[in-house]
């Protein structure tokens, strides 16, 4: 059933990483990801992989969840790796017709696979350990400087919060409408592509109508409570970065420095 689809991947917990300030988490993970692409040789890559593993360990979330998120992109990883095999210089290792696999290509393939997988794992750490609301809170705070350019930061954050809030509601609604149309004999399982697309109409139209109705109702309810945007609005949960966050920041910076140092003193593996 549609209700079983895992959305909003937050897995509640009380690990060190759960308790970190979401802003710090976002910034550090972003930094981490950037350095995944800075790394140029196997030593620095290994350093990063180990750090990713340690981060995952500290998040206190079972490996099963991580494996599932990697499984979703396994095809992309394989596809890009195989493609990369054929690029790059070095000695020829294998020759199939006009295609050649060279040693450079092999390291290219390994690098791209490790980078993509680590990238997914890192973002999984973020979404697994941070509730959607604190995520949007953090994004709002981090985007605040953009106000100078007249970006409506609060409004964007509010829209994100509302969108997240309504995902389960709309899923439930979809489920109900699907049942109702199935009860009227709607056939959604058979037929060709065109037929299947047509079969979606009896679900999409009522869903649209009810989404608009919900939007109007919500707007009305917000206005009744005098909502007027972010001006002068205070927060129920004020974000505070503490010692834990400072410690994590130092660790990440050290790892990044390690990557830079090994890049300078060791030969690059990419071509």
């Amino acid at each position, binding site marked *: 059933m549609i209700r*079983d689809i895992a959305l909003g991947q937050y897995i509640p917990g009380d690990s060190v990483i759960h308790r970190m300030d979401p802003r710090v988490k976002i910034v550090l993970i972003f930094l981490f990801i950037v350095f995944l692409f800075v790394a140029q040789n196997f030593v620095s890559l290994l350093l990063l992989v180990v750090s990713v593993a340690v981060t995952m360990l500290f998040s206190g979330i079972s490996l099963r969840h991580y494996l599932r998120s990697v499984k979703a992109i396994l095809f992309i990883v394989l596809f890009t790796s195989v493609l990369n095999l054929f690029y790059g210089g070095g000695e020829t290792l294998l020759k199939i017709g006009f295609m050649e696999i060279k040693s450079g290509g092999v390291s290219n393939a390994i690098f791209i696979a490790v980078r993509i997988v680590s990238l997914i794992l890192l973002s999984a750490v973020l979404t697994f350990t941070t509730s959607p609301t604190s995520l949007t809170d953090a994004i709002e705070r981090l985007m605040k400087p953009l106000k100078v350019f007249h970006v409506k930061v609060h409004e964007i954050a509010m829209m994100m919060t509302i969108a997240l809030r309504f995902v389960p509601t709309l899923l439930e609604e979809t489920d*109900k*409408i699907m049942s109702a149309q199935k*009860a009227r*004999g709607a056939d959604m399982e058979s037929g060709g592509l065109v037929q299947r697309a047509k079969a979606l109409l009896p679900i999409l139209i009522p869903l649209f*109508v009810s989404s608009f109705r919900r939007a109007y109702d919500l707007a009305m309810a917000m206005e009744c409570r005098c909502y007027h945007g972010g001006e002068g609005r205070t927060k129920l949960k004020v974000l505070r970065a503490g010692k834990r966050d400072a410690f994590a920041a130092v660790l990440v910076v050290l790892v990044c420095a390690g990557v830079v140092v090994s890049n300078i003193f060791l030969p690059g593996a990419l071509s």
Partner: protein
Amino acid sequence: MAVIELKNLTYTYGEGTPFCRTAVDNVSLSIEKGELIGVIGHTGSGKSTLIQTLNGLLRPTSGQVLLNGKDIWAEPKKIRQVRFQVGMVFQYPEYQLFEETVLKDIAFGPGNMGLTPEEAIERAKKAAAFVGLSEDFYEKSPFELSGGEKRRVAIAGVIAMDPDVLILDEPTAGLDPRGRDVLLSQIIGYHKVRGNTVLLVSHSMEDVARIADRILVMNSSHAAMFGPTREIFARGAELEQMGLRVPQITKILASLRERGWPVGTALTMEEAVRELLPLLEKGGVRA
């Protein structure tokens, strides 16, 4: 002959996960052809789950649903045929409307049955008449109707499939008193003319008392009682323990009886009048 028979029916949500919950537990019963059954039970008692197993929207975890003596899941690929025979009107069915015109929307079900467009429209017109929608409505958009009218269009959409069993899940919820009365009498009228089996899920004991032949009481996933309406409502104390009650008028007469007045039982206002009028005429009422 029983039109629907349940044998040890059990349905568990999310089986095999830590969140599994048994919503219907080992229910066995049989419903005769042409009966009008009221289904009552407080929120979360399993009524909605139970009725969704009847037309194959939910597949029982264990046990069987027999329709005219045949297991509906004997051939899972033909489950759609079961849905045409067991029509289901969900709660707030007006949110399922999607077509451009009322008539087209009502004809959606018959169209899915494989009828020609003309036949489907013909059925739609008949169904519209049952729920009191005049020809003026045919070409209107379902979205410009009032809430009550939309609901009637949605119910007509299920009636149009001409099911042997019609299940209505709280069809009167959210309607004004007059809309409720009209809708209920339309359901009764349809039941009489068509002579099919109707299951009505309701939170209104008054409604159920007025129209049901037999009542099924669901309580914490079990079928707690199943019997003739009068017998069920004679067990007021038990019903109250389940978070239900008897119709108000039944309760009033019961308290009068307790205080020694010579009155019988009543399920509806009309019956109560019949019981009370002789007393008043004798001039016997003085507090």
